[in-house]
């Protein structure tokens, strides 16, 4: 685990990926529908990582793109679709036709994969859940097991801990030490962060430590377990960040059409990933004012009083 001087962990995306993600790593770029760090996925493609094990509950477009680019040999997931739209054609091509390379699948239900993260985060030997009884998923994935409840209520499913080599988590804001605040769909971001061996947080805004300290309930991930902080505005586009920008649904619909053809995907990767130096160039390439239509109207929560006790 690499520690940086001064507790100042702010680095560029390029550095964060170069230092944090090697070939053959297991990588979790998480976030349920929103908070998906496309900027990190694109940088991993640009740095031409290979043989990764990609972990995500909902692989979404970002893993479709990373798998089409040949970065991965294995996918751990619980729902493989273009959310609200349809299929993920690149992943299906890899599974069904080994294009561009074969892809091994390891499959859970949502609660099963959440449970793997939770056990990994708390360093427990397994997570017990009321699922899988009667399902063929038990046969499809031998890591999901049934055990006898030692307290006598019968059979219960268990899943083993999952400790990704690297987690990449997008959020609204963090300070330079990596104390990270997130609001909206919390997903599994906290569990993944605590489960992982190396944590990169990517944020829309870098704030002063004092700002974090004024609202400690909102700090989902402490800097204690964070290795790198990347400031990357619009880094989750075309997914959404609560209060900052909406999902760019037209991009999701466009991908549904485009991704049905591997050659078209490669051309897209050339234009939007390999052909650009970084996320700032991506944002610039989108038309000026592009994000205006994705910006929600404000809906402010009234401040709460934590009180000052001295």
């Amino acid at each position, binding site marked *: 685990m690499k520690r940086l001087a001064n507790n100042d962990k702010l680095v560029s995306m390029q550095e964060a990926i170069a230092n944090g993600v090697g070939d053959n790593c297991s990588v979790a770029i998480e976030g349920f529908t929103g908070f998906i760090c496309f900027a990190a996925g694109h940088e991993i493609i640009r740095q031409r990582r290979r043989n990764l094990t990609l972990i995500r509950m909902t692989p979404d477009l970002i893993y479709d793109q990373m798998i089409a680019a040949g970065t991965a040999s294995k996918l751990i997931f619980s729902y*493989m679709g273009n959310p609200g739209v349809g299929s993920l054609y690149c992943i299906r091509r890899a599974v069904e036709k080994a294009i561009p390379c074969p892809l091994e699948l390891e499959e*859970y239900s949502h*609660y099963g994969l959440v449970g793997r*993260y939770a056990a990994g985060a708390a360093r427990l030997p397994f997570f017990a*859940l009321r*699922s899988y009884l009667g399902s*063929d*998923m038990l046969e499809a994935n031998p890591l999901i097991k049934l055990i006898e409840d030692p307290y006598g209520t019968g059979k219960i499913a268990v899943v083993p801990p999952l400790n990704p080599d690297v987690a990449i988590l997008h959020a609204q804001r963090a300070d330079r030490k990596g104390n990270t605040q997130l609001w909206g769909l919390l997903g599994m971001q906290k569990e993944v962060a605590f489960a992982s061996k190396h944590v990169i947080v990517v944020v829309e805004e870098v704030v002063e430590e004092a700002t974090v300290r004024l609202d400690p309930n909102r700090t989902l991930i402490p800097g204690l377990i964070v290795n790198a902080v990347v400031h990357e505005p619009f880094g989750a586009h075309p997914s959404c960040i609560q209060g900052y920008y909406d999902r760019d649904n037209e991009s999701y619909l466009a991908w549904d059409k485009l991704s049905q053809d591997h050659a078209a995907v490669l051309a897209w990767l050339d234009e939007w990933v390999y052909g650009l130096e970084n996320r700032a160039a991506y944002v610039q390439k989108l038309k000026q004012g592009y994000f205006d239509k994705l910006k929600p109207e404000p*809906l402010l929560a009234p401040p709460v009083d934590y009180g000052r006790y001295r």
Partner: protein
Amino acid sequence: MNEAAYTDSEMMIAVAARVLKGARTVFVGVGLPNIACNLARHTVAPDLELIYESGVYGARPERLPLSIGDPTLVSGATSVVSMADLFGLYLQRGLVEIALLGGAQIDRYGNLNTTVIGEYRKPKTRLPGSGGACEIAINAQRTFMIMRLKRRAFVDKLDFLTSPGHLTGGDSRARLGLPGGGPELVITDKAILNFANPQREMQLSELYPGVAVSDVQAEVGWPLRLAETIKETAAPTTEELHLIRDEVDPQGMYR
């Protein structure tokens, strides 16, 4: 009775909303079930709380959500929690009264496949997989399926059993110790089916106006059992159609 023309989807939405009568909590997916739940809030279930697997309890979306992770579900909700809490404290705790599910294949006992067509290791078609469906089917107090009648969907044998219904029928579900009650209804575009017999086998219970038993049987891959009496389902009322078209789905996204 309203004589105005309506679509198959509008009929399904109206029926799915009616069966939520009096319910307090419903576990929702996107698309048609979401419209049905919002219609029910305007009509038969004003206290209905919408629960989404993305971690939202008591959603009051101002627009039709595009996915179950749409940020419109967060703004104005009663509570937004982690997925660990949603599955553990809401679903597994038994707080989900009704879950609405669908799938690529369903069998006569209401078991669902959303995983593969063909063999698991060498699929003809790779489908999305479980998502939360497996644990939802196991833990929700009651499960209603919403699926269009198609012969390739209503199959004699599933290619893969993702989410348990009544398993092999009879009391097989209870014997395995699944907490929830399992499938009660299948709402389709032609008819309503239920499992109200000791074998817990899907049976035809209501036909939509203008539909014959043979129309339903033609789309089901096994000899379909018939309920003792088969009712005709009431067509959507003027009020239901007005609410669907002008209030809950003004853009007609799912009609």
